[in-house]
């Protein structure tokens, strides 16, 4: 019934708007701003028509032939739009109010912009004010907790990339979102982008917003728009910050005496006589005076300093024992590591064009010694209106970044990994001040400080340039054509030195130099036609476009060993004598796309959007080269309805929207369709002629192709509600969504009897994600506006489930093996991934108890002090078949909570971030609690392990018997911990100089701030940091990464 009324109304409206022209007058008037100053250049139009004018220099206007039923619209950039019904008036004077929300009203969408209130899809938009003054160089990392539906885990190395996933894990393949900067796809990482250059970031989360990017939209799209100048004034901004970092090591490791006791305890647990090269073999460990020679005491002829020899052949580095113990973590941590950032920008423009130029410099020292990151960024954006119908522009940037030092992270072969293993008895230096190490001690590690020092000249320098040149022409009014040619050039140069470390047990035999150079070149050419027209209450907007992209990558590298001198300046490829190795390769991807979008808006009340994109990609064989990705969404602005007029009048809003669409994912490697043979000196060469230093070229089967692979497709549904109450001081957005990925590409494991060629990806997987994104904001003021406050809460939740991986229900994907142990796995019915292992039901306290239990791994493990693993499959035998899924690395939800308080010139901002319900596999425990590879151990191992003489009652043991038994170290619930945490990410106090003082100083804004970041973390996790960076199938495995640091920053922002 209502519908019919609407239709009738619609028809009537058409008739009225077309023919209802009568009683016309000429209107005049003046437009003023809030300070009663005339506002020249204000657009005055008769709503629903093309007639209108612009105010003159005195703010006056005049429009002939205006009907009395007409509505006049007054608009000026930065001012609130005003509409006035003409009625009987002949003169209408208007005062325009400052637009307070300004830029927030327009958000960037694919190939265009959109007024926020007409958006029907799910987009998180973050503006520059939320991005600056962050503690990370990477602007995307600063989105953490600010954009709902986006899960971000920050890397803690300087200049590190963040791990970003949007709405869960859509695929077992690449889950990275697509980044677009000013219309140009960016592949070279976000850490090279200066946050100060960014105006806004839009995160396209659902199908309707992202389907315009078709085959690459399935993981979500992050659109970055950079700052432009304004037509009227020149603004010079300067900002600077200086910060220092610190880090407190939470691990209590054994000191020299304790480690000796630990050896004795371990021997006792193993039922053998203690025997140590260093600590002797008596009833108790004896701390020696020397570790080289092993276990020697003062007076031992072997300790005669005259025997000391640092030469290659007769190396003998006499080293005293550190009797109190070396704190290896303190040795490598660079406390008070400094960060400096300065930024200068000049933006402005004139009648015809605008410009924005930005220069930024960032220097960040790593919290691990001898590491640093330098970044220089430059951006020049210009937009010029050549004439009334043609506009051109060229926003582009150049970024140079240099990583210096040893950035090894998240692995055992890193300074932190070595520090985990290094015994306390080993000092940093030997008796002559050279590096001391593990040689002669039987320890398996490398002096981590020496390693950092020797790697201090290593670097990776990246030069990235991204930008575009565009021309935008108005063909007829409402019809615009835009041609954009974008480019992204990236080069990476790496230089790695591995210098000899004669003091190490497993030393490098020669000095070695590795250099590499890579270059990526991408161009994209997008042509779009945009038609926008309002017919009375109907507004349509049609977009049609094509885009072609070519991305090529080329790299080569070389290495040499054995140099006359290991001087950094001498070591070049041409001065290396041996091990002449070279490599080089390239690849290319091309795509062609056609796309279109239709927006329809009736009375700003009923909204509809339809999108379709057709993509062709070189990654797929001819049969499945093309894919089509449609999406549709609709919105209903309920608060515009007459029956809710009370709501609208109070300034409140309510919008319901929903959408559905299909997107693709093409991240499967570039040449999946081809079966290839390759020649590789390491894998298929052979010295058939018996030569000892050369080999002959041979081929091997490299890949098996699947020409029938097609796109992964992800169907996404989204229902959202936007609500604003209490005069829009309290706003909330809730989106409930699901994503269903089918035809998921999976390289099905092939048995070894087929050989080792890489299997092709085939379309067999199926994965589902469901979740919700919630934003709540409350902003208000008190005390006559002297006190302003706002609270913001962002909550994201997703649930991921693998429906199937392949046609075999038992097919699974497992994570990487860390020292033979695999912690993660995904199979049909689980999340991608979950932790997989045994369930510990306690520790056997007596032999009788152990004997009475089912045989564990053949029965030899059934001993008091060992784990009692659960018989999961009920076969009364404990073995690998009892492994099961023992926790998920996926959080139940993540949340960001933001508080802004401003009192006069002071403002205080606090930002808290929480991750709840995710588990972490604490792999570091295996090193420091169980001592693999003879590593140093935690005090827990000595004091709280089963059988420890310090433990009053074995039933209280936190750890099993420490006896190096591998079965105790099998992945199990003993290593899985709750990774939930709440962290005060930033706390910032800002003082803004009052206007009157500013005027005296001839500046427009000057503010100072102090900021503390990561000041506290509430967590039960026992590792270094619950914010664990690990991607894809290895998600949630903590393997000795750089920790999050506390940081104190002082900064100032100055605008002229």
């Amino acid at each position, binding site marked *: 019934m209502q519908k019919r009324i609407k239709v009738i109304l619609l028809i009537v409206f058409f008739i009225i708007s077309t023919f209802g022209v009568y009683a016309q007058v000429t209107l005049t008037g003046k437009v003023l701003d809030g300070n009663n100053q005339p506002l020249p250049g204000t657009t005055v139009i008769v709503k629903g028509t093309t007639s209108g004018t612009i105010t003159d220099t005195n703010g006056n206007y005049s429009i002939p032939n205006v009907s009395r039923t007409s509505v006049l619209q007054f608009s000026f950039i930065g001012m609130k739009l005003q509409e006035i019904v003409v009625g009987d008036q002949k003169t209408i004077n208007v005062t325009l109010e400052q637009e307070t929300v300004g830029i927030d009203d327009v958000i960037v969408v694919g190939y265009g912009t959109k007024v926020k209130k007409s958006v029907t899809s799910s987009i998180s938009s973050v503006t520059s004010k939320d991005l600056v003054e962050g503690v990370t160089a990477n602007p995307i990392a600063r989105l953490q907790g600010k954009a709902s539906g986006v899960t971000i885990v920050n890397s803690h190395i300087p200049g590190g990339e963040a791990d970003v996933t949007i709405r869960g894990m859509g695929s077992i393949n690449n889950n990275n979102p697509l980044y677009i900067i000013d219309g140009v796809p960016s592949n070279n990482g976000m850490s090279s982008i200066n946050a100060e250059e960014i105006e806004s970031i839009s995160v396209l989360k659902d199908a309707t917003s992202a389907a315009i990017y078709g085959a690459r939209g399935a993981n979500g799209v992050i659109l970055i728009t950079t700052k432009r100048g304004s037509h009227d004034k020149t603004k010079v901004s300067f900002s600077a910050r200086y910060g220092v970092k610190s880090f407190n090591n939470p691990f209590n490791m054994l000191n020299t005496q304790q480690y000796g006791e630990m050896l004795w305890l371990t021997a006792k647990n193993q039922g*053998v006589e203690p025997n140590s090269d260093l600590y002797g073999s008596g009833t108790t460990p004896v701390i020696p005076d020397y570790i080289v020679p092993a276990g020697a005491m003062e007076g031992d002829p072997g300790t005669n300093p005259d025997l000391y020899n640092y030469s290659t052949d007769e190396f003998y580095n006499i080293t005293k024992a550190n009797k109190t113990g070396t704190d290896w973590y303190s040795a490598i941590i660079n406390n008070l590591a400094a960060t400096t950032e300065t930024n200068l920008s000049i933006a402005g423009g004139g009648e015809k064009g605008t410009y924005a130029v930005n220069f930024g410099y960032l220097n960040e020292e790593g919290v691990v010694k001898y590491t640093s990151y330098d970044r220089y960024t430059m951006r020049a954006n210009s937009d010029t209106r050549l004439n009334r119908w043609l506009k051109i522009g060229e926003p582009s940037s150049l970024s140079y970044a240099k990583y210096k030092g040893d950035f090894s992270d998240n692995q055992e072969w890193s300074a932190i990994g070595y520090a985990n293993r290094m015994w306390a008895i080993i000092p940093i230096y030997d008796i002559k001040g050279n590096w001391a190490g593990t040689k002669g001690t039987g320890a398996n590690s490398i002096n981590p400080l020496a390693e950092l020092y020797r790697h201090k000249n290593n670097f990776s320098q990246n030069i990235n340039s991204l930008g575009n040149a565009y021309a935008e022409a108005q*063909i007829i009014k409402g019809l615009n054509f835009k041609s954009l040619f974008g480019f992204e050039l990236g080069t990476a140069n790496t230089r790695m030195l591995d210098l000899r470390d004669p003091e190490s047990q497993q030393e490098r035999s020669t000095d070695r130099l590795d250099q590499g150079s890579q270059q990526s070149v991408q161009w994209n050419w997008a042509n779009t036609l945009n038609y926008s027209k309002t017919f009375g209450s109907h507004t349509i907007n049609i977009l049609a476009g094509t885009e072609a992209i070519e991305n090529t990558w080329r790299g080569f590298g070389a290495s040499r060993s054995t140099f006359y001198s290991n001087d950094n300046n001498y070591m070049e490829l041409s001065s290396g004598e041996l091990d002449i190795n070279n490599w080089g390769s390239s690849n290319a991807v091309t795509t062609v796309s056609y796309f279109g979008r239709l927006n329809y808006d009736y009375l700003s009340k009923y909204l509809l959007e339809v999108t379709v994109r057709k993509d062709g990609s070189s990654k797929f064989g001819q049969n499945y080269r093309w894919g089509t990705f449609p999406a549709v969404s609709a919105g209903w602005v309920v608060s515009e309805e007459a029956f809710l007029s009370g709501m609208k009048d109070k300034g409140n809003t309510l919008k319901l929207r929903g959408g559905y669409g299909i997107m693709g994912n093409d991240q499967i490697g570039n040449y999946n369709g081809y079966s290839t043979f390759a020649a590789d000196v390491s894998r298929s060469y052979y010295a058939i002629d018996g030569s000892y230093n050369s080999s002959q070229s041979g081929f091997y089967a490299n890949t098996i192709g699947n020409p029938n692979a097609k796109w992964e497709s992800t169907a996404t549904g989204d229902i959202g509600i936007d609500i604003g109450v209490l005069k829009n001081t309290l706003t909330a957005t809730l989106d409930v969504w699901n994503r269903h990925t089918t035809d998921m590409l999976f390289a099905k494991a092939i048995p070894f009897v087929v050989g080792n060629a890489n299997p092709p990806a085939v379309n067999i997987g199926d994965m589902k994600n469901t979740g919700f994104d919630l934003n709540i904001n409350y902003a208000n003021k008190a005390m006559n506006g002297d006190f302003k406050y706002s609270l913001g809460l962002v909550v994201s939740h997703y649930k991921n489930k693998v429906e199937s991986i392949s046609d075999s229900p038992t097919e699974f994907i497992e994570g990487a093996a860390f020292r033979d142990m695999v912690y993660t796995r995904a199979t049909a019915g689980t999340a991608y991934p979950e932790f997989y292992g045994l369930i510990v039901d306690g520790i056997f306290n007596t032999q009788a108890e152990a004997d009475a239990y089912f045989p564990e791994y053949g029965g030899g493990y059934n001993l008091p002090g060992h784990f009692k693993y659960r018989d999961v499959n009920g076969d009364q035998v404990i073995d690998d078949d009892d492994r099961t899924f023992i926790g998920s690395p996926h959080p139940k939800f993540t949340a960001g909570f933001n508080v802004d308080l401003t009192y006069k010139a002071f403002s205080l901002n606090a930002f808290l971030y929480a991750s709840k319900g995710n588990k972490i596999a604490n792999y570091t425990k295996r090193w420091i609690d169980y001592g693999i590879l003879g590593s140093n151990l935690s005090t827990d191992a000595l004091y709280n392990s089963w059988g420890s003489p310090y433990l009053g009652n074995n039933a209280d043991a936190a750890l099993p018997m420490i006896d190096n038994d591998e079965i105790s170290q099998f992945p199990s619930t003993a290593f899985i911990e709750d990774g939930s945490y709440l962290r005060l990410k930033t706390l910032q106090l800002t003082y803004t100089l009052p206007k009157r003082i500013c005027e005296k100083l001839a500046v427009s804004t000057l503010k100072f701030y102090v900021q503390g970041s990561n000041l506290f973390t509430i967590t039960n996790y026992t590792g270094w940091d619950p914010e664990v960076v690990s991607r894809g199938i290895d998600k949630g495995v903590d393997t000795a990464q750089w920790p999050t640091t506390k940081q104190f920053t002082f900064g100032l922002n100055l605008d002229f």
Partner: protein
Amino acid sequence: MKNKIIFPFITLTLLFTLTWSCKESFLEQVPTGTVSNVVLATEKGVNSLLIGAYASLDETTVSPWGVQADGPDNWVFGGVCSDDAYKGMNPTNETAINSLENFTATSQNSYCLNKWNVCYDGISRANDVLKVMALSNPPLDAKFTSSIRAQVLFIRAFLHFELKKVFNNIPYITDEVVDPTVVKNNVDTWPMIEADLKYAMENLPATQTDVGRPTKWAAQAFLAKAYLFQKKWNEAKPLLDDIIANSGKSLMPKYWDNFDIEHRHNDEAIFEIQASVNDGAANSANANYSNWGINPKNVDGTKSCCGAYQPSQNLVNAFQVDVNGLPILTGSVPQFKNDMGLSFSDAFVQDTVTPVDPRLDLIVGRRGLPYLDYGVMRGSSWVTNQAYGGPYVGKKGMIQKSESEYRTTTGWASSINAHIYKPIRFAHILLWRAEVAAETGDLATATTLVNMIRTRADQQKLMGRCRTFILLDQEGLNVDYDVPAANYVVKTYSSNFADIDFARKAIRTEMRLEFAMEGQRFFDLVRWGIAEPVMNAYFAHDREFRYALGGATPAIFIASKHEYFPIPQTQIDLQKGALEQNQGY
């Protein structure tokens, strides 16, 4: 006004047509740096594929880093799993070997998986050569194809033989198999190994220009070995006689000639696995990569890792001889003195009185004796973890300090070198022939052949008796290089073996001594059917001072199970219905 409309419109049309017209060719991107099978179907391409198949003989081809696996020298399955050697290193290193050594390995064991992986990869490469060769149009020259086929079938048989020794129940994959994943492993594969080797034997030349390619004699020797494994004495006999009489191969004058760089390719080698270092391969993947851990630590100038594969006390004891200079074949073998528990600054006097076979000190590095040209072996300071791995270090596979150009200069595992491993040398032919003779009642021939080996063993002794008992630094040592390092005695059997039992003992012991630390002992124990008593006696004896064999979970060998290793579970899972697990696992 006109321009305003027309100009963009034309541009627009142009742009659309341009992108459209070039789209299909624009979207054609072919892989770089690789070729397709059709392109390889030429003589040159087939030859290159064949080199790729040869490359898999060193069993390190699966990744450029080499997988942590046993190589063709089988130091783990053939050596550490036998009574010859301990794993060495630290208990926490390469723990997958711990469970193999103690016979507690499960079907998850990574060494089993990697062995399976590398061997079948090589087999697949071998079959690819034949498959691609068949694609050539017009067909390639028949002489060429039969020469290629003979080499391919040799490689295929060699790798299946490797798998057969370790896993016994294996699928045999040939180029005619359409789907290798359905081939069952419950079929007797000896006939297939024999068939491939017969073809190779009949079609390979008696000599090859490239030393890496198998000759007719190599194929014939492997065929004889396959017969020996099946106790087909009468089939083996003529093959072995033919090799002895006609191959031109002979024993090298000195025992160590088989293990030094100077005689890398020698007349005793029946077949060699080639190794090259510093040839441009990452981490020297074409070297004898499985040698990565096989050397002492702290040896001056070697920068070596990791001290794996340490000779057992049991093996050292076996080198003692009786008053007649013959191995002690009856009664208990006495314990030979060692330096367990002593630091290099403690005094230790090595036993230079007890008579020992001179091969002992060519195979085993002992404290106080010269170690190649590295100086005197300094006891526990050259051993990674003496309490765990015992007092001895191995010598085979090590190169001399002076031969550094044969050692890789890359990476951490600088012990990797260009030593070539000889799976079969002429000494094998002689002792196998002795075994055949004994088993067929010809005790006189058996005795003669064993004596040939013992006579050669007497030609070389380790010189250099150390008269310093505290080993601080090399320079201060008092070593008399004109005096043998120990009391070396090795004599021939003066009369024919008395009976078959004695002959077996004598021949088997001779094989153990001659081929000690060459990765063959365990497979021999299994084929002789004596693995269970020998291994359990060894465990009982050596666990006395080597805790890793005892402790809380003492090693034990279960007959009818531990003769073969478990088939990797992941492969059984992937090939349900085709693969069956070995008995007992």
